């Protein structure tokens, strides 16, 4: 079926309950396209979703999926992939899910470099809980829990990934579905942890990080006149990721020598199939205790 798979095959028959205009629609479409374009099949695909408006994505896509507890999507995805190297694993969640409660897992999942893709639907707000500031919210963003702004510098997810040893670091915009799909596709194809931070506007609770804002401010690394961006160039990547003046769209960094965890640890077997009794040489295990 793979060769004929198209993005609608990855769509479930559940009607999204996202607010009309929510960025998550575009984000999801791009993900479905990327999965289809990379020749995956829903039966061999596993989506792990966090908790949040973003986390509902697992319900609206058609594949094997788990909608876990808040902040723990990455460990689940890592577990699926290590046990089932034959399955395509994609993890998705929100900025709160990934960078607040899940920040520790994020750092360690990046380091581990398991061969999966991680798409964070970054709307710079807690959508599902109705509008509290998130780790990516601006310092002066007024919300129910920050009437005068959170007064903390927002997390720079790309910088965190870079610091944690990321091998594929990208950023997209849900409204530029074409480019977004293309980059997610590269994340899937990357040998290792493919990380994509997607600006996916919340039209209900965030009136500063809007479609207009991103449309007007995002710079595509491929269209930046000043430099020819080479994603393999760590220093160039660093400079742009830490650039205080601009936010970029595109693959900021990709380590061409990336070795995924499964390879360095010699994993490759489908762990779901086991014999009907103890392993053949199991008595050797007993003998060790003589």
């Amino acid at each position, binding site marked *: 079926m793979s060769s004929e798979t198209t993005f609608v095959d990855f769509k*479930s*028959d*559940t009607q999204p309950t996202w607010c009309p205009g929510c960025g998550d629609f575009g984000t999801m479409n791009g993900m479905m396209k990327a999965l289809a374009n990379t020749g995956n099949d*829903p*039966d*061999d*695909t*596993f989506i*792990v979703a966090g908790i949040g408006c973003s986390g509902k994505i*697992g*319900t609206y896509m*058609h*594949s*094997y*999926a*788990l*909608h*876990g*507890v808040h902040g*723990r999507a990455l*460990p*689940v*995805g*890592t*577990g*699926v*992939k*290590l*046990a*089932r190297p*034959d*399955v395509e694993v994609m993890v998705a969640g929100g900025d709160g899910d990934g960078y607040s409660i899940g920040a*520790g*897992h994020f*750092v*360690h999942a990046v380091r581990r470099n398991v061969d999966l893709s991680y798409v964070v639907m970054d709307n710079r707000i807690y959508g599902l809980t109705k509008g509290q500031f998130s780790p990516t919210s601006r310092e002066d963003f007024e919300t129910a829990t920050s009437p005068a702004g959170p007064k903390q510098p927002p997390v720079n997810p790309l910088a965190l990934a870079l610091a944690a040893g990321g091998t594929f670091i990208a950023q997209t915009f849900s409204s530029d579905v074409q480019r977004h799909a293309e980059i997610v596709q590269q994340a899937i194809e990357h040998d290792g942890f493919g990380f994509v931070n997607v600006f996916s506007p919340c039209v209900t609770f965030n009136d500063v990080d809007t479609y207009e804002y991103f449309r007007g401010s995002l710079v595509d690394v491929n269209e930046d006149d000043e430099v020819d961006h080479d994603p393999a160039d760590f220093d160039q990547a660093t400079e742009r990721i830490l650039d205080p003046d601009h936010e970029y769209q595109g693959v900021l960094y990709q380590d061409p020598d990336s070795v995924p965890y499964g390879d360095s*640890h*010699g*994993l490759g*077997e*489908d*762990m*779901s*199939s*086991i*014999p*009907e*009794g*103890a*392993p053949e*040489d*199991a*008595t050797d*295990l*007993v*003998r060790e*205790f*003589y």
Partner: protein
Amino acid sequence: MPEDLNWAIGGEAGDGIASTGKIFAQALSRAGRHVFTSKEFASRIRGGYTAYKIRTDVERVQSVVDRLDVLIALTQRTVDENVDELHPGSVVIYDGERSWEAEVPGDVVGVDVPLKHLAEQAGGAIMRNVVALGAAAAIADFPLDCLDEALRKRFGDKGEQIVDGNREAARLGAEHVREAYPDLNGRTAEYGHEYRLERTDADYVLLNGDEAVGMGALAAGCRFYAGYPITPATDVMEYLKGRIERYGGTVVQAEDELSAVNLALGAARGGARAMTATSGPGIDLMAETFGLVATSETPLVIADVMRSGPSTGMPTKQEQGDLDMLLYGGHGEVPRFVLAPTTVGECFHKTVEAFNLAERYQTPVYLVADLSLAVTERTYEPGEFDMGAVEIERGKIVDDDEVGEWLDGQGRFRPHADTEDGVSPRALPGTVGGTHMSTGLEHDELGRRTEDTDVRVRQVDKRDRKVDTAREREDWSPREFGDVDAETLVVSWGSNEGAVLEAMNLLEERGVDVRFVSVPYLFPRADLSEHVEAAERTVVVECNATGQFADVLEHDVLQRVERINKYTGVRFEADELAEEIAARVDGEHEPDTVGGSGEVQAE
């Protein structure tokens, strides 16, 4: 003269006590002797003290007693800490060359061995503990070749020279004793003791509970282990690491327990038999995900190797304080199985069973061991671990063809189909047509979120019905011992079994008969109403302060029970337990009353 010999080595943390003790235990096992070890000791002084105790006999031993026949005291404090357990004729090996003067009680036989000096002679001061082992062997007339074998096992991978050095150290220790104390046997005999570690032809294996759990997991086809180091559960991870890979599996050291349990959950959803092990603090952190495992109906084994709580508590001390958490912990209402092996051997068997139950009922299974069980090395006939008898049952996994039987009207797979027995079909990723969503939200048969009141109730009932089904289909019997007609019924769980059994022997000598029920299945569990009714008094023995299982039993049978609780951080010893039970039989203790503070601390 008792046939068992009680031996210990003690010193400061960092003195290599545990590995030295283990070598001696290994040597005894090689000599065809039964061995039962213990690492938890009462400590009356703050910090640092550590010891390893061995009870050995040609018959099976299954508990420690508070008597020491031979003690290797690397420090003065070792003598001080153990002075109550020494008796006239006990032998204390010490190093008179060290700064302290061993103040051994008068009727204890002191054996001064220049440990460091002899070790240096053999090749290095680091071997001084082995010199002491040689000395101990000589005292009990124990053949050095068994010790040699144990030394090879321990040091083999460090090269022949190291092995030889250690053998020489042992030899020098033994020689010193024979030369400096030619009439040692005569002196102990004055007090009625002659120490002889006889050899038999038996061939035992020696292992502890953590190792038995790990071996059980491998036997059961576990392919994925994720964990975060924590005493006393780390050994499970360290056992599996380097072994599970032989079978195509892996061990992941996670960044914390939240990650560990979610990693294992992921692997389980991928279809692997997966597990994690931790201790109390980690169990707390896993509580939220536990609910997800249960509602997503994922088979997962979570081992809790208990230590003294609450909070960080006493990490290297014994307790059975997590039962309430395992039975009732986690918000909301979640079906769960709780299995608690009572011996090292059972650690193996219950682990295999845990994996089968998890897959058969698609639920999380708590496997709960206590520190005493986990770190206690014990000998077994190798046949106890019969790999040929291991059966693997994976439950209702459906393949490409079978998926068709479980589709709804629109061709969608129903992973939470509301079946009669509560168990639904399970399609692993890759199964054609089996795609579905699993979630911790309440869901319908397809796994889609719902707030429909009827569906909600049906799914709650369906999940709970799995427990009812399991109650019917599986054998949840307790392990029963002693005289069914005895007036006194003793109930315990976890590692207390051995101590109770040995206490029963002691009680029998005093003419006290006891019926004993050791409960390995904590949920679902057997109904003990008839047992309690038939007895004149029921005494629940457990290593905690509040009597958690006693409360459970009282609710089950609607009757108050008596309690023996110990929460010093030290396991029960057979002899103290015999005293405590006898006191109940003699009516020296009032039965506990509701809400009262009648809990008795056995120490």
